[in-house]
């Protein structure tokens, strides 16, 4: 299988790969020159690194309670202070980054894995397949997304998979629509005809020739959906529908802080800052990418 794939990587494929890489480097350059998008990229990279390296960055045990040190303000020992149970707030926020990023990644992946093929096949096949898929997508879109997320999480109980599903399912329609539009605009082009003449299978034409040309708007959506997923995850855990205590989830930390924020405002401020910063980063990056790619040109 592996060797078959490698031999199938034709000269054309390799040229295309190089073009994509070059375009990627070019986009990165534009992003860094656009100040706001550069800030966004920086925040996103930092958040990702924090999530990956969380156990190394943690200065304390996130679950160790020390009632003699409860609700302390920032100090040299606890740089962001401690919470109601004397747990180190910095450590908990760092570990919270991991939860937020993991849920967002899972939710967005689920939306991409379901939405992209649906939209691609729908646009490529047309006819009744298109009608059925698009009607189903419209039906999903007509349902209030947040309500669906709450009901799903309440019904299935909190777990990583439930959160991926509850948050990801609401993003499926946008991917299906954008990809469908992209495929529709591409499928009559000459390179598709050329590929067909070289005897490539329809599936390969769709997924290896057409789809790579629809990557740009997907990338914009992925970035903006990351922001949205972080927002929904923290909202759900704030409402008590996410992971149960003592999980260091950002929303849960804020929910716990509600009762004593007058005494210790830092407990209500730092986790909120972390959430807002993460969402801001993805939004800035998404806006920057959108300015570069302008996905409206793909929408059908």
């Amino acid at each position: 299988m592996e060797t078959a794939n490698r031999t199938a990587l034709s000269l054309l494929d390799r040229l295309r790969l190089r073009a994509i890489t070059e375009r990627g480097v070019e986009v990165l350059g534009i992003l860094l020159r656009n100040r706001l998008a550069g800030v966004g990229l920086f925040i996103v990279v930092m958040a990702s690194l924090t999530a990956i390296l969380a156990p190394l960055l943690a200065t304390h045990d996130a679950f160790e309670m020390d009632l003699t040190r409860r609700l302390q303000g920032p100090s040299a020992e606890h740089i962001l202070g401690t919470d109601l149970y004397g747990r180190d707030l910095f450590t908990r926020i760092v570990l919270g980054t991991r939860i937020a990023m993991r849920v967002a990644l899972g939710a967005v992946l689920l939306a991409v894995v379901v939405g992209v093929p649906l939209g691609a096949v729908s646009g490529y096949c047309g006819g009744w397949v298109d009608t059925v898929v698009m009607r189903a997508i419209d039906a999903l879109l007509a349902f209030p997304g947040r309500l669906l997320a709450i009901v799903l999480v309440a019904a299935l109980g909190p777990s990583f998979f439930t959160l991926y599903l509850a948050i990801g399912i609401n993003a499926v329609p946008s991917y299906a629509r954008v990809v469908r539009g992209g495929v529709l605009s591409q499928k009559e082009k000459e390179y598709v005809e050329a590929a067909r003449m070289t005897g490539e299978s329809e599936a390969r034409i769709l997924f290896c020739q057409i789809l790579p040309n629809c990557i740009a708007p997907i990338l914009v959506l992925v970035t903006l959906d990351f922001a949205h997923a972080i927002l929904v995850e923290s909202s759900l855990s704030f409402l008590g529908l996410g992971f149960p205590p003592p999980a260091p989830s950002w929303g849960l930390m804020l929910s716990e802080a509600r009762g004593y924020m007058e005494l210790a405002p830092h407990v209500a401020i730092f986790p909120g800052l972390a959430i807002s910063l993460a969402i801001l980063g993805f939004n800035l990056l998404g806006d920057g990418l959108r300015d570069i790619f302008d996905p409206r040109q793909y929408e059908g």
Partner: protein
Amino acid sequence: MIRYILRRLIELIPVLFLVSFLVFFIIHLIPGDPVEVMLGEERHDQATYELLRRQMGLDEPIHVQYWSWLRRTLQGDLGYSLRTKKPVFDTIVERYPATIYLALSSLLLGTLIAIPAGTVAAVRQNTRWDYGAMGFALFGISVPNFWFALLLILGFGLYLGWFPTMGYADPGTNLAAFLWHLTLPTIVLGTDMASTVTRYLRAEMLEQLRLDYVRTARAKGLPPRLVIYKHTLKNSLIGATTAIGLHVGRLLGGSTVVETVFAWPGVARLVLEAVYARDYPVLQGAVLLLALTYVGVNLVVDVFYKWLDPRIRLR
């Protein structure tokens, strides 16, 4: 127009089926046995359990249960709350006004912020005004509602003591107290709405300002103010209606986090209370009505949009 509305109504059928399936299956998905919840702490024997199970129809095959549920629902019978024993329909109707008041005031505030902010940002693109408006919009999009709410409570409620931190007053009996309680939740939801609508309006307006009719209007010597406010803004608002309409649908469904933080007795909090209490009939009824409201409002907004702009192509 009538054909358009009819077609939209026909398209609603699969949506309504999805809604009904989802609502029906809530009761089968939620962990725990509804019969046990209903019996609660009471001591009971196997016979009582079986009897109740049969009364609730839970011993029937699933498709029979679905049809009988659908029939009852269509007749307006949503059952009784397990917690309060009151009819579900009455419970929801009781909670709806609070959500509607909050939705309307937020809509008003959001529009009042978004229209000037979006207009100024577009007309004075790349000036301090534009950056200010866009900074505000970015703030609204990035700061989660529940955290913004907590900050407002902390600042204006706990420290300054200007506004109550939570609660509700009936507008019929005490209008002043009602408005006083309404302020902070309205600021949260109004800001949330204004941030997306401002961005939308700005983009729409920048697009319009590039069009030929604007150049023509300017070339024939119309004062810039007239061109902007009478021609461009009017056309841009048609586009912004979609963004506003999206929020109407969302606001009328209630914001769970805002209603929770401010202990606002609306329908969204009712859903959450029903989840916590495992009160299935209320959960089913509320989700059903909220979904129907959302679908209905979106339909009305689309029709309204269509009516505003006859150019929109009929598919």
